[in-house]
């Protein structure tokens, strides 16, 4: 499929987008770095693992840095999207597909065949790729590496190296720079280092990336974790309480003040990878209205699924007897149902006029959960819950959503569907934050009066597939639940039309018919009826 308007008939290569010599060297370095990992994967016994691991990760990082320096620092500051749709890697060309397949296979192996990576089972020593990472893991926490440590390390290296590239690419834009430093920091400190150090301090505590909020870390309230938290002394209890506060208190306050961007494009690890390593693929998201329809159904179904699953899982390990512990199965179920009813009622009372068609989806989701909760209550026995075992629900969710959706499709398909497939279609955390962002937040993207020229840069580069232009060309602010506030629409706008803002709730959504700049009488006549 040609991306060209009109394929050139000339014999010369039509794409004047060749890499410079420096960039070729840089790519070469990165490939050698990756090649060392591949050698390890195929069980080539590298003599000094620490040295080779250092060489490999350094080559990948330095290669990316040299590439970025040459690509951006040799040019004046400004938007750097020249040739994006001509390059094979970023326009679903051969390189794009190959990258997609490699990433996808990596995720399949990572989640389901960790033995292939060399994970030692039953206390056996690691081999292969995972063994290569043993020295680093031992340095940080004293224990051998696991496939998750390998993944976490590569993930962090990717965010740091490509974060650097992103900062250079947008070196005229401080919002992008600060935001990227933030995701780099949260990945390195919160996701990578702190959990390792916590293990050193208290090895009984479960792995806890403190910035990961339920329902993104859907497993947070499972029995083994909750037990570990409770038995983990003050720190453990603090972690458990923090986990609960995160979703019920901290998240709503920050989302009200800043929109869901405070999480999705400033803190979150999934968002962090999407914004850095995934930046070259942001324009591949589907902007059609039908994709938006699918998005709303799928993401809210995942949310319903995770609420049900978590409720069921917690329910099963709670007891019946209120004398033993105040939180019994019945109290738990009733409080979940009560909380959902409260959210639903408040929305219907105060936001009815803003809901329109979407209300139906909310209502459907709400009723599914309530009915299921009643079902749990009525039909469940000691082990069986509703119709399924809680364990079945949990493992199904873990498999379908946790592994396949967020990993294999979400990241593996970056070069095909764009970099935010998971965040847009799958993430239940994004669904909750988005619901609040749409209903109860000061955040919006302001459209600058009548200045839009409908060029389409904003929509093209929206990683969430929002048709930003559809609003901007009507002079209307953009208030969409899926917007992660990455700020790229505002950056690529050639006419200074879009601005991410936190302002008062009043007048946040402002549909107009006739735009600013025209006859005032006409504007009044048409817009204020």
């Amino acid at each position, binding site marked *: 499929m040609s*991306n*060209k*308007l*009109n394929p*050139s008939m*000339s014999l*010369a*290569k*039509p*794409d*004047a*987008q060749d890499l410079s010599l420096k960039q070729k060297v840089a790519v070469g370095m990165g490939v050698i770095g990756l090649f060392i990992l591949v050698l390890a994967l195929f069980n080539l016994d590298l003599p000094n693992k620490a040295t080779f691991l250092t060489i490999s990760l350094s080559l990948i990082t330095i290669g990316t840095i040299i590439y970025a320096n040459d690509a951006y620092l040799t040019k*004046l*500051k*400004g*938007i750097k*999207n020249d*040739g*994006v*749709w001509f*390059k094979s890697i970023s326009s679903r060309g051969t390189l794009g597909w190959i990258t997609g397949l490699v990433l996808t296979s990596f995720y399949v192996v990572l989640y389901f065949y960790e033995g292939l990576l060399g994970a030692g089972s039953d206390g056996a020593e690691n081999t292969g790729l995972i063994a290569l990472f043993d020295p680093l893991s031992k340095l940080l926490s004293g224990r051998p590496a696991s496939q998750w440590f390998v993944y976490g390390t590569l993930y962090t290296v990717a965010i740091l190296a490509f974060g650097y590239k992103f900062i250079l690419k947008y070196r005229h*834009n401080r*919002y992008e720079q600060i935001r990227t430093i933030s995701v780099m920091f949260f990945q390195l400190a919160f996701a990578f280092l702190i959990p390792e150090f916590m293990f050193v301090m208290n090895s009984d505590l479960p792995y806890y990336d403190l910035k990961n909020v339920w329902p993104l870390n859907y497993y947070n309230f499972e029995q083994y974790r909750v037990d570990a938290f409770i038995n983990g002394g003050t720190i453990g209890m603090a972690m458990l309480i923090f986990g609960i506060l995160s979703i019920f208190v901290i998240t709503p306050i920050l989302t009200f003040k800043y929109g869901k961007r405070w999480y999705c494009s400033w803190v979150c690890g999934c968002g962090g990878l999407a914004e850095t390593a995934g930046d070259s693929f942001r324009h591949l998201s589907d902007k059609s*209205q039908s994709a938006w329809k699918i998005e709303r159904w799928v993401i809210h179904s995942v949310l319903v699924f995770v609420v049900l699953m978590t409720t069921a899982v917690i329910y099963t390990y709670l007891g019946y007897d209120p004398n033993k512990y105040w939180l019994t199965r019945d109290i738990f179920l009733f409080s979940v149902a009560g909380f959902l009813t409260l959210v639903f009622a408040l929305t219907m009372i105060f936001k009815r006029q803003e809901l329109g068609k979407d209300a139906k989806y909310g209502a459907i989701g709400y009723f599914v959960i309530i009915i299921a909760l009643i079902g749990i209550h009525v039909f469940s026995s000691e082990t069986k819950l509703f119709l399924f075992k809680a364990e079945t629900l949990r493992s199904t969710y873990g498999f379908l959503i946790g592994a396949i959706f967020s990993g294999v499709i979400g990241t593996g398909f970056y070069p095909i569907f764009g970099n935010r497939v998971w965040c847009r279609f799958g993430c239940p955390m994004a669904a909750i934050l988005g619901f609040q962002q749409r209903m109860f937040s000061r955040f919006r993207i*302001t459209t*600058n*009066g*009548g*200045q839009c*020229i*409908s*060029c*389409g*840069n904003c929509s*093209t580069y929206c990683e969430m597939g929002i048709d930003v*232009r*559809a609003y901007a*060309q009507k002079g209307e602010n953009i208030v969409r639940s899926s917007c992660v506030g990455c*700020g790229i629409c*505002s*950056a*690529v706008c*050639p*006419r*200074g039309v879009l*601005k*991410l803002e936190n302002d008062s709730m009043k007048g946040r959504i402002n549909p107009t*018919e*006739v*735009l*600013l*700049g*025209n*006859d*005032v*009488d*006409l*504007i009044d*006549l*048409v817009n204020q009826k």
Partner: protein
Amino acid sequence: MEHIVIIGNGISGVTLARHIRKLSDKKITIISAETDYFFSRTALMYVYMGHMKFEHTQPYENWFWKKNRIELRKAYVEQIDTDNKALQFANGETLNYDKLIIATGSKPNKFGWPGQDLNGVMGMYHKQDLENLEKHAPNNEVCKRAVIVGGGLIGIELAEMLNSRNIPVTFLVRESSFWNGVLPEGESQMINRHIKNHHIDLRLSTNLKEIKSDEHGKVKSVVIEETGEEIPCTVVGLTAGVSPNIDFIKSSKIETDRGVKVNRYLETNIPDVYAIGDCAEQHEAIGNRRPIEAVWYTGRMMGETLAQTICGNRIAYKPGHWFNSAKFLDIEYQTYGWVFGERGRPDYETHFHWKHDDDTKCITVAYNKNTNEFLGINTFGIRMRHETFNRWLTEKRTVDYVMKHLSEANFDPEFYTHFEKDILNAYNNQLQTVTS
């Protein structure tokens, strides 16, 4: 059912059609010979630069038209028979209308230069121009050098396009400084430097004498009027402005001059025939505006207005405060109200100019030196709020008020460095110098 026929599927015609649909059930047909669907003309450059694919420049998905019962017809109108209310197409077919709107936009100017019709000479306006450029300038091996003639908004966009493919560009500008017919001197000079920083060979006060052909009728070189220098090149871009695209109307009874003559209601001399957008020419200019305004926003506003008239609420075209925007390579430009360059500046208008040391940001504030009334602002590299300036212009604020409250109008992304304090200091110092 009344049949509304619109010739031209650009921003004017499409805005009109959308608004008629909102207000009524009339039958609507849009005719275009250029493309099947409406696209944003201002975005064509991004297709060549690889920022977008052509379909991204289309603001509405293809199902939109059917859903809104707007019929699209790809055809070229050859003649308009206003007596019988019929259109004659180039393929021989005809179409009857009850009301006709001419919204055919512009075409690039050609000033009779020798060689202006050679292979490899092109404007940058229609989709076909883009296809032509792709053919003649796919890369810097096929196109060793391009020469652009005419220093306006399209010229600098074409330069940016070619630059994105590393094609060397020579940019011939008739004026002594880029776009200084419109921009005040300080701004114009800053853009000159910015163009040169992008390694574009900018030649000021330079006119084209002729375009020379090779043996195949293709461009070989251009000759400069002033020096006689011959510059070898593969492509010549003619971007010396645009004029109404109305040749096919000349044979009809519709009154034309440079454009289709219209009154304030956008009505032509023939009942039920209207003209909007770039191709419409006002009998008398509105305020400081020109009789023909080839601007995206004007086309849209005329469409919004005429829809009312066509749907029974006859109202005049009364545009509000002037505004416009553009982007010069990496520097964004916005303007609100009137700021004149040297040419046509009223006696009472005087300027305050501030420029940042990095040479990519500046503003010029125009005010009435007798009354101190704020007249307008040009801003480069700093985004400003349309709504705020629109309000200040309506309220007829003084320049002092505007300078003091400038930060309220700032529209730059969060965390950007603000310069309002520097600007205000510079403004106050200037006043001190004037009084002392």
